[in-house]
Every structure is written in C-alpha cells, then in structure tokens.
C-alpha cells in the first residue's frame, strides 16, 4: 500500500531516467559515427529522436547532440529528463533511499552546473559517458538499496515501459516505416544501431560478427536474456504488474496485467518468419500501442481510479 501520487511519481521517475539514458546513448553513437563520413547511423538516430528536420537545417551532429543533451527548452532533452526525474524523486524523497537520491542529485548537479556546456564543448563523448555511467550507478543504487516492494516495482514499470517503446521506435526508424524505404544497410550503421541499443557485445556473443538486419531485429525483439530486448522488457512489465496485483486490489489491477500478458504472449509466439511477410513494422506498431494501453490501464487501476468504488457504504 502506498500513496497513489507517490506510485505515480516513482513510475515517472523510472520513465525519465530511461529516456535520459537512451537519448544520451543515441547522442553518443551519433557523435562517434559522424566521425566516419559514411554510414546511415546518424540519420537513424535522428529519426528515432524525432530530430530529422535538423538535417535540413544543416546542423552538425555536434549541434544536434548539444541540443539533445543540454537544451532546457527541448522537452525530450537529457537535462529536462534528469530534472524531471529529480523533481519526481523530491516528491517522493521519503520513499527512496538516501543512496538512490544522492546518485540522482549528483547527476542533476553535474548536468545543470554552469560548467556543463564548457565540458560538453571540450570533450562531448567523455561527458556523455559520465552521464550514462551516473545513470547506471543510480540504477545500481535503486537495485541494491531499495526494498524490492511496491514502490520499486512502480519505478521498474516506468523503466521497462519506456524502454520497450524506445527500442520499438529505434527499430522502426532503422528498418520499419519510419525509415521511409531506406533501411539501414551498411555494416557500420548496423553496428551503430546495436550500440544505440547497448547491444553490440551481447549480440556478438550470440551471433558472432555476422551482423544482419534480420538477426538484429530478432535479437532486439525476441531475445529472452538481453535486458533491452522488447520481449525481456514486456516479460518484466508483466511480472511487476502481477506482483503489484498481489499487493492489494486484484480486481482493480486486472486490466493492466491482462494487457501486459497479452503483449508478452504475442511476442512469445511471434517470430520473424511470421512477420517476414508483413515486415516487423506491424509488430512494432503493436508493441507501441499496447505499451500506451498498459500505461493508461496502470493509471486507471492504481492512480486515477474513481473514488466512488472505494468509499465505504
């Protein structure tokens, strides 16, 4: 049992943290890839980030990355995500451990410091690696110091729902409809894509250096062990929702759990042979839509439920 508002804040804290990490990593890969004049990875990254129009404005990769990291006006930027995660953390300061709070606060102070822009200008990639490693330390503190009870599960739900949607969007930008008929084809770009999903090394261990669009999609969609695959994420979403149902009102939380179960089994039984005919696009769209429905169902069940149902009569 916890305050509905607190559950909401923990959930959003998870989403913003995941978003900050994803955007940092995409910016990092985009910057590194832009050093090699060839390859489509930067374009895919921009598409996935909704920043493709910047190309038309003739902005360099560094300009784009600077905006993605430090632009306080851009709602999707890392600085805004970190600030919002921290704002949510402050709202629930009594619910998270000091270790968790201090990790996030440290990152916030680093990225909002007046010195941040100078540091980024001087050594952008190092700066991004530090941000990403701060986020990993934060997640480590969450895992190793917070009780793995209800509050922690809401935080994890936020992380995995955000992750499933972000990976789906990244795959769509690389191979799906958002690629607008020019899917990533060269080896370098495909390696870049795996890096953006933090998946290069785990991929190589499964498939060796044989990098192919079909295998990449198989890995990021269906791998059961890789923590950023969509199947892994949805399995966690289902698991956390099932556990949350066990904390109290089973009836109310049935809806999100059922939706997550449906998405999870769809991913379990789907494979690329099946989607090959219609392309992965259909499946990716389903993932995106279902994540949106689960999000709404979580609200309906735990946060913004009608009071009338619960008043004593």
């Amino acid at each position: 049992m916890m305050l509905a508002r607190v559950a909401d804040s923990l959930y959003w804290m998870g989403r913003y943290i995941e978003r900050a990490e994803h955007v940092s990593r995409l910016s990092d890969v985009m910057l590194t890839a832009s050093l090699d004049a060839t390859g489509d990875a930067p374009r895919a990254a921009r598409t996935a980030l909704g920043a493709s129009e910047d190309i038309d404005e003739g902005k360099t990769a560094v300009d784009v990355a600077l905006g993605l990291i430090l632009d306080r006006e851009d709602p999707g930027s890392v600085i805004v995500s970190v600030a919002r995660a921290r704002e949510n953390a402050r709202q629930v300061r009594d619910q998270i451990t000091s270790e968790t709070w201090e990790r996030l606060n440290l990152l916030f102070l680093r990225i909002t410091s007046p010195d941040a822009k100078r540091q980024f200008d001087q050594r952008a990639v190092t700066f991004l690696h530090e941000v990403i490693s701060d986020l990993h330390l934060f997640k480590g503190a969450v895992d190793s110091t917070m009780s793995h009870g209800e509050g922690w599960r809401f935080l994890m739900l936020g992380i995995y729902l955000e992750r499933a949607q972000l990976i789906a969007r990244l795959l769509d930008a690389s191979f799906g409809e958002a690629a607008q008929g020019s899917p990533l084809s060269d080896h370098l770009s495909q390696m870049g894509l795996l890096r953006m999903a933090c998946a290069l090394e785990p991929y190589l261990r499964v498939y060796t250096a044989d990098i192919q669009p079909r295998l990449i999609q198989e890995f990021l969609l269906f791998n059961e062990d890789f923590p950023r695959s969509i199947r892994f994420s949805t399995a966690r979403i289902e698991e956390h929702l099932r556990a949350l149902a066990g904390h109290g009102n089973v009836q109310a939380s049935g809806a999100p759990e059922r939706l997550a179960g449906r998405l999870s089994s769809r991913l379990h039984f789907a494979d690329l042979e099946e989607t090959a005919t219609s392309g992965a696009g259909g499946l990716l769209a389903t993932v995106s839509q279902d994540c949106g429905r689960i999000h709404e169902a979580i609200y309906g069940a735990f946060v913004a439920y009608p009071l009338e149902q619960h008043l004593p009569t």
Partner: protein
Amino acid sequence: MNDRDPLDRPLSAAYRPGVAYDEMYDKDASVRAHYAALQSRISTLGAGELADRQKTLEQSFLLQGITFTVYGAETSTEQIIPTDLFPRIIPAAEWAKIEAGLSQRLQALNLFLADIYGDQIILKDGVVPRDLVLGAPAYRREMQGLYVPHKAYANVCGSDLIRNEAGEFVVLEDNLRVPSGVSYMLANRDAAKRTFPGTYRTSGVRSIERYPDMLLATLKSLAAEWRPNPQVVVLTPGVYNSAYYEHAYLARLMGAPLVEGRDLVVHDNLVYMRTTVGLKRVDVIYRRVDDDYIDHLTFRRDSALGAAGLFNAYRAGNVVIANAPGAGVADDKAVYAYVPEIIRYYLDQEPILSNVETYLCREQKQLGYVLDNLDRLVIKAVGASGGYGMLVGPHASAQERSDFAQQLKADPSNYIAQPTIQLSTAPCLVDGAIEPRHVDLRPFILCGDKIVVTPGALTRVALKRGSLVVNSSQGGGSKDTWVLTGENETAAAGDLPA
C-alpha cells in the same frame, strides 16, 4: 595571513568578541572549560584544513539536497542554508536549567490553551486581558469547546532562547504553530560527527538521534485512546515549500507517508488517503501547513493546500491534527509578555527561564516610552514572524525610525518593543578566519502524553558581522549544538529512555 594556529592568540586580531557574552571565551580571554577540547583541536588545524572541512560539509549538504531553490530570470539554482563547522557547546548544568524551564513553560502554555478554548477562567480572573487573547490573529473561535487529547494543543514546540550580556538564557519567543529547523539540527549533528569525530567522542555529547522516533511516539500517543495502531501522516504544502526538505526528512525517518492536501479525502467525517489499493484511513496528521490553509471550508477559502472537510472530521474527533489549530494564540507576541504570569497562575511556580522585558504598545504609557526610546529598542509586529515587520532601533536610520513611529502610532496594539539585547557570540569560520558571530538557540520540545525536551538544539547564526538577526530568511545560518552529559557521567546518562 597566519596559516597556522588561527586561534593561538585569542582576543588578538583574529578573534574579538566585543561587549556580548562570548560562548567560548570568558571576560579575561581564557577559554571556558567546556570549550577547551574543541579549542585545542581547532588550534592544531591550519586555516587550509579548516577551509577544506567547511567545503566538505557544504558539499555534503548540497548532495543530500538540504537546499532551498533560488529562482532566477532564466534558471533556478539550489543553495544550501549556510552552515558553520564549529559546534556550539552547552554544559550540563546550564542545560538542566533550560530543560526544566522549557518543560515548565510548555506545560503552562498548554494549560493556558486548554483554558482559553474551554472555560476561559484566566480571562474571567483578569490575569490576561480578554481582548488581547480573543483579538489575537491566531485565536481560532472554531476551537472553542473541542476535545483535545491530553489537553496537548502544542505538540511540537521550538522555542527561541538567547543568552543576554549577563550570560543568562532567556526566552525570546515560543513557537507553537509549525516550528521548523529540526532537520537542520539533525543534519548539523551528522556533519559535526564527521568534522570533529575525536572531539565529539571524548566530550560526552548527548544524543539527539532519537528525535524522529520520539516525535512518532508523541504523535501516536494523541490517538492511543481510540485507535490501537494509529496511521500517522505528515502533511506538507508540497515540494515548493522552503521547508519541504524537512517534511520529507521527518516522514522518511518516522516511516510515515508524506501527504499533500490532494492525497486526502474526507468522507462522512473520516479522513482517508488515496493509495494504490484504494482509500486508507488516516488517524493523526502532523501538519506542516498553517492553520489558515488546512481546510478551505473552515478557514481560508482560497487555499488548496489542505483538505476540504478536514476540520469537521477533527471536530468529530475522528482525526488528530498536530499541532492543534489555534495553538498559535499562546505564542502571540503580545500574549508573550504575560507568560510569566501564566506560569504563576496555572502552576503556582516562579518561572525558571525569564522573559525578555517587553513593552506592549497597546498600553498608552508604554507606547509613550517606546516612542521616546526608538533608538534603543527592537520593535516587532505582533502577527509577523521570520524577522519581517521589525525595526532594530540602534541599527536603523533616523528616517527609518520616524517612518516606523508613524506605523506605530497608527496601530499601536499591533506592536511590542523590547530592549536591544546583544545576543551572545560564538566562533564561526567566516571567509577563512575565525570570527565571533551572534547566535540564538532553538531547542525542540515534544508534548503528547508527556513532555520531552530534546537534548540539543538548532543554533542559529547571524552571519553578517554585528548583525543580531538570525532568521534564515534574513541571511542567517546555523551550527550544531552540543549538550554535554557533564563530568563523570556516561554518554548515555539522562538520554531519552530506551
């Protein structure tokens, strides 16, 4: 600059206490016995080492988020409440008097509140003027005749004490509404233990770490009669309140939910909070929201910080609000002048701690005296707090004084005056040098089924040289306060019961 032994030559250019009582040095410039250990430790540290420790201390406050937000034109920045690394030390014998005096005072003030909101016998006896009490801004007519558990209206009290030129502790103000600062007391202690671990260990400092669980026990005792295991919550105005850090801190250390008004639902005079599994009954609300804002159906209509119907639930006896609404009438600055009489009236005892001499401007004769002596007095508005609405006569210009005199004459009953007291000074690290700064003392007293004085306090510091205003809203800082167990006593003696 002398980089070694900054305190080697007391009362030299490095440290010049002035006319006020100094906490560390006596009149002959010798170190007071209870400061000897600290002084000798400080004198082994160079200026560079002290600056490093101060910086570490500030970093740790920043990291923990013990900050307030300064909103600028484009960005907002986080600033810490200035904190000083040298603890202020109080010997056991002096503390024993403070402790007894504060207990006595709170006991009398709660009896006064029970009387005022009951039969009003003290008013009938003419000990305190009726209009002064019933006309006080903090008086709440709605509280008249309500049942209050243990007759404890003020459950958390943070009194402001000062030490005058003669070295005597006197009470400057009683804070019975929503006193804050206890989290700084605890954070300062954490920091002091890291800054001077050896000195702390050997000095025999009384522990304050049990404040949160004593607070919880106090709050639970308020509902013990009718709920076996009451649900306690902390009510905060929200994350933008300047004391939000403290609200979250206390909630976390008590293990109580930190709720906002929007989390509460009142139905059939019962209070609930919205949880992930539906509505859960709330029994005790430690509110950090002012009276006016707890229920817009009963008090201010423009408020969204409380919960609609909360006061009716309280009136029905289904929830406890701590401190009780209306408790502030007993810390009104004009009522303050009568506290010694109040103690004598209810307890038949002489006050252990004195008041500061106070002139009530509502009395024609006293107003005349105040107007003639504006340059020597501190004038305070009765309803204001936090260092606002006051004139420090000796530090004001002739123009400021004559402006204030006009305000005084226009509404005399809104003002009181007190002589300008040179608050005692304590050593502080200011811009790399050790200098005397004026300090006060805010101990915290709990009152549920019994009264508990926490053996420690927040020492507030006026950081500007010569300034007598310690409020954090006016550029004040704070430092840790060590209450000693006394010679031959074990560190745990006299501490809170296990």
